[in-house]
């Protein structure tokens, strides 16, 4: 963090975003759809980083919040025809409130645990939502899911077109990045990092660390809901695949791949994973080896994720191990239960 000037980082991220917004619409419809999916999912990934990278909480159940947003959107649209016109924004608000409310409830339970136990309890809570989605056929369509036959149309714009919908997702993604970026740089965000580094110290300094973590959990849930709204409109379907354990694991791994505690790293991670999974898979059948190998190699040799590469290059051979103390390493030591005891 201290090695790079924040202004430089922000400029680099802004440049990448402008690049995406300018180039992607001129590519083919496949790339546009792929990018749209990656951006919609990235909002969930950033919310996971808010917890893992900045607060030191490894959540393995964030797909639940994406699921609430996605199922709410699909059910309102197919049953009540709500959310396909100007009331799209109403659905966005409802989805974010709904998943924030679920996170507020789940958070009460999850915040009682820390470290690996937090990971397990969020996994169990995520499985509760999956179990309901899977079995409650009359509401969720069970295994078949719910098909969403049309995308919204408002302000006189029809978002059923790939490019216009891309712009919508891009705009909401950029706003989410901006909001979460502002949040982690705010005094509240700095306290979260303090909690990640050493919770006891923050407690002694008089911070209500429980409340800080709880609020972060609820905010992450709300962004998960937003991600779900866009996700279901991108795919045109929501099914149990979207709330299954592997979706939560995916989001967590994308954060680690890009670099925990960087916010934008998760977006890079999502980009790499979506590229391998949806583009490389059309070319070669062994794409999953590539993905697995990328995960294993990054976790073993690049604990700071892809975002730590520039810093590593700058440091050169002088201190090759220094970068190993990246955000992930600090996040994991903060979240390891035995560290406090040992």
């Amino acid at each position, binding site marked *: 963090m201290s090695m790079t000037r924040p202004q430089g980082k922000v400029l680099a991220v802004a440049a990448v975003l402008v690049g995406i917004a300018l180039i992607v619409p001129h590519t083919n419809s496949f790339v546009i759809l792929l990018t749209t999916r990656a951006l919609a999912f990235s909002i969930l990934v950033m919310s996971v980083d808010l917890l893992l990278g900045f607060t030191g909480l*490894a959540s393995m159940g964030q797909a639940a919040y994406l699921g609430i947003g996605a199922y709410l959107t699909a059910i309102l649209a197919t049953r009540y025809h709500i959310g396909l016109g100007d009331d799209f924004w109403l659905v966005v608000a409802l989805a974010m409130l709904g998943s924030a409310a679920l996170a507020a409830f*789940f958070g*009460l*339970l*999850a915040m*009682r*645990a820390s*470290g*690996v*136990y937090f*990971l*397990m*309890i969020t*996994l*169990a*809570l995520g*499985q*509760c939502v*999956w*179990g*309901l989605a*899977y*079995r*409650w*056929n*009359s509401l969720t369509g069970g295994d078949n899911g719910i098909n969403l036959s049309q995308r919204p149309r408002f302000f006189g714009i029809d978002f059923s077109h790939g490019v216009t919908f891309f712009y919508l997702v891009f705009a909401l993604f950029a706003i989410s990045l901006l909001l979460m970026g502002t949040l982690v740089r705010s005094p509240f965000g700095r306290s979260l990092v303090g909690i990640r580094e050493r919770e006891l110290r923050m407690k002694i300094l008089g911070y209500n660390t429980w409340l800080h973590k709880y609020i972060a959990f609820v905010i992450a849930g709300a962004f998960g809901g937003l991600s779900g709204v866009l996700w279901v409109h991108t795919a045109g379907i929501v099914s149990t695949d979207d709330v*299954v*354990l*592997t979706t939560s*694991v995916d989001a*967590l*791994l994308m954060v*680690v791949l890009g670099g925990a505690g960087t916010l934008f790293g998760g977006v890079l991670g999502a980009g790499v994973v979506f590229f391998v999974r949806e583009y490389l898979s059309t070319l070669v*059948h*062994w794409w*999953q*080896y590539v*993905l*697995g*190998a990328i*995960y*294993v190699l990054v*976790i*073993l040799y690049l*604990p700071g994720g892809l975002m730590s590469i520039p810093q590593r290059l700058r440091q050169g051979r002088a201190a090759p191990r220094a970068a190993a103390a990246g955000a*992930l*390493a600090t*996040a*994991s*030591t903060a*979240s*390891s*239960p*035995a560290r406090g005891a*040992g």
Partner: protein
Amino acid sequence: MGAQFWLIQIFNGISYGALLFLVGSGLSLIFGVMRIVNLAHGSYFLLGGYVALSVIWATGSWVLSIPVAAVSIAILGLAMERVFLRPLGFDPLRQVLLTVGFAFLFQQAALDIWSGNPFDIDPPDELTRSIVVGGLHLPMYRIFMIGVALAIGLTLWLVMEKTRLGAAIRATVDDAQMARGVGINTSLISTLIFGLGAFLAALGGVIGGAFLGVYPGLDFEILPLAFAVVIIGGMGSLGGAAIGALVVGLADNFGKALFPEVAYFTLYAPMALILAVRPTGLFGRE
């Protein structure tokens, strides 16, 4: 719904619990010793089933397939722990994430080697019959599953409670640092336990193959159930894993029979509640 219904459901729940004990006990011991959640544990279960299928196709022997599958997956587990998890040292989160990376690699390998078709492992004819006890038709195979779990559980219990190695393992579960201090080779114990966990999961995969089938995706379906066993039972506790497996087996069975619409919810909601009230599980040691 007479007494017959309840007795059959209880029997089915117990036999399913027997299978879950095989998967859950290894996961629990690994957690107890290394403080990591092995997310590749479901993969060991699935790969065990696949290896057994290959053995059966090659030799026609179901009896032979059980030890071959269990031992080869145990070697896989040993290698994974030694070569990849060990160098990370004490860093639970990175180790957990690494196991997911491996779960994905194993998934692809299984697809490549055994295709995406679902298979069943056919046990010998003697085990496919059913016996009648008090008017109830009980399938032999489910009785066999219970027998295997009992035998394994008893063996593990004897080793853990009555041998020096068992004492060293229990010491490592309680306090790894202190155990190292008194001269216990905790690194070796971690490796052994990892191999044992893989062995038990693969054994479960072979035995469960006749019952659940062997198909892509089974790995991540069995994993959360194994977690439920571990969490209810308490991490690192063998007796807890047995009780956890029974509870999950019965809850899953009755949930599906009585409240089909919320079946999984009735399983995972108590699991979350237990974790919230007692993060170390019902029978876990503090």
